[in-house]
């Protein structure tokens, strides 16, 4: 595979994500409304620590270890969570007033895509959690692409977006086993694999991804990896505060995360105890590797600067005062475009 010329990337600031799922719904409404896509959430947001979506995906293998493919498990629709049917008709139009309540129809579910929301870990008053939004990482070394015997997955030369060619796909699903992030879904109706397309039809018109543009938390930065004027390069390469999730999977993701800081702990007397972090370092290391501690140190030092009345270019960048500047030039208003259905 010839290396792609440029690479689009996203940075998500976990300190700002409020778990509102606006991104999830923006994506759902735009891309996964057809038959066979009911259970797909190309964008998902889960509470960490938690089992994630699909359930326990971090234990499913895939990706690479020391450069060799690591066997991966097939995520099932049960693992992702079925698309539940509700009794909307009865509740809204049944004339039963307060006697009818929304209920999942059919079998009582025991799992869903956001099942363990806000559970987190730790004991009161030192409980902790944070939200982790995930999309396909449009990896530099995509395990999905390398697994496919039909070369049905392509990485675009011009921007590194990873796409499934549905005409070539035969529904073999080796990609689903191989992707360590479990971000590929099988469409049972169309019998092909489907995944996040990084909103390429928007990108091609200069419009940011729906998940990024719709985010009320100003969590998501977008742009080319090599654009030194834009936030991505500054956060990833200059400040080194944005890190890939699970670099140990060796697929070299192009989605990066600013790791979460947490409020300090309380000791037994109810006093603030700054001697150890509320979110255990080991946990963050398990997600982002040991460099996460360096990133947190940089964030703390820069925060301290502003607390002291000073200025921090990094903090200004992360606060994202100017919304449009988050998108590396992809800031066109989609309402100015006339979209046609192919």
């Amino acid at each position, binding site marked *: 595979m010839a290396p792609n010329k440029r690479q689009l990337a996203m940075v998500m600031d976990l300190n700002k994500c409020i778990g509102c799922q606006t991104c999830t719904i923006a994506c759902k409404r735009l891309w996964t409304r057809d038959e066979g896509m009911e259970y797909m959430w190309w964008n998902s947001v889960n509470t960490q620590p938690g089992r994630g979506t699909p359930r326990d995906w971090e234990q499913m293998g*895939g990706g690479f270890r020391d450069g060799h493919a690591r066997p991966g498990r097939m995520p099932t*629709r049960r693992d992702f969570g079925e698309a539940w049917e509700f009794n909307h008709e009865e509740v809204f139009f049944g004339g039963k007033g307060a006697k009818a309540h929304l209920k999942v129809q059919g079998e009582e579910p025991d799992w869903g895509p956001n099942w363990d929301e806000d559970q987190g870990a730790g004991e009161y008053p030192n409980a902790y959690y944070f939200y982790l939004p995930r999309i396909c990482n449009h990896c530099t070394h995509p395990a999905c692409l390398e*697994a496919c*015997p*039909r070369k049905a997955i392509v990485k675009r030369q011009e921007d590194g977006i990873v796409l499934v060619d549905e005409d070539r796909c035969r529904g*073999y699903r*080796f990609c689903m086993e191989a992707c360590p992030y479990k971000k590929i879904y099988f469409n049972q109706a169309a019998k092909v694999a489907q995944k996040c397309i990084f909103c390429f039809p928007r990108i091609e018109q200069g419009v940011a991804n729906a998940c990024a543009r719709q985010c009320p938390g100003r969590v998501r930065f977008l742009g080319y990896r090599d654009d030194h004027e834009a936030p991505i390069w500054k956060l990833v390469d200059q400040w080194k505060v944005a890190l890939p999730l699970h670099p140990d999977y060796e697929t070299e993701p192009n989605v990066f995360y600013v790791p979460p800081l947490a409020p300090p702990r309380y000791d037994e007397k109810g006093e603030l105890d700054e001697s150890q972090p509320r979110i255990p370092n080991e946990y963050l290391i398990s997600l982002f590797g040991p460099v996460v501690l360096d990133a947190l140190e940089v964030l703390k030092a820069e925060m301290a600067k502003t607390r002291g009345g000073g200025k921090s270019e990094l903090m200004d960048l992360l606060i994202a005062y100017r919304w449009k500047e988050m998108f590396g030039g992809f800031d066109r208003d989609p309402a100015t475009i006339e979209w046609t259905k192919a």
Partner: protein
Amino acid sequence: MQAPYLPNSGVDTLLDPGAPAWGSVPREQLKLEGTPLGLQPSSAIRSRWMERKIGNIDRVEVAAAHDGRDLAFRLEWDDATENGQASDSDQFPDAAAVLLPTVPGASIVTMGGPGGAVNAWYWRADADGGRHVVAEGIGSSRTLDGEWVRGRGIWKAGRWQVVIARALRIDTPEPVAQLEPGQKTGLAIAVWDGANGERAGIKAYSGPTWRDLVLDAMPAGRRS
């Protein structure tokens, strides 16, 4: 193996694996083996199947017959579970295919090669009919347009009975097998056990060498 000439059996009759016409056709047992791990085309597939058995179905009973227009294969094999329509992503359908060379010496293990296509007549338990496939190397297979290949399967008491058929000659510029009565060609068989997660190159097949397939000639004076 010999494909006898059955003048009065249209392909519609032969598509029924239980048709009495099949009673007179000799059946041959073919041993199947798993495709070699080393030839699986990606390291992810190889790592996933390193410690798993490839090719769960170890034998298939094959019969073939033609009526001067169409050639039909009847395959029968033991499979304890019927895997048809899948309801989740970890489920795969049972399937079978007949492989024919389009040039002498086309390679089976590599699914043909550039300029040396192989032609598969493919049936799958989750779809009606069949697929007409050409391949010129691993991962290159293409399903051709047109409903040339017909297939029908019945699963009964732990056994699949499947018929796959196609016209002897078809009008296409694609590199497919063009056959005629009296001809001798090669034949290979593949069977996929869905319950074992078999799909693509993960299958049982009749081995790397072509079996003989001889189509009985038609008596002089008969025209197809």
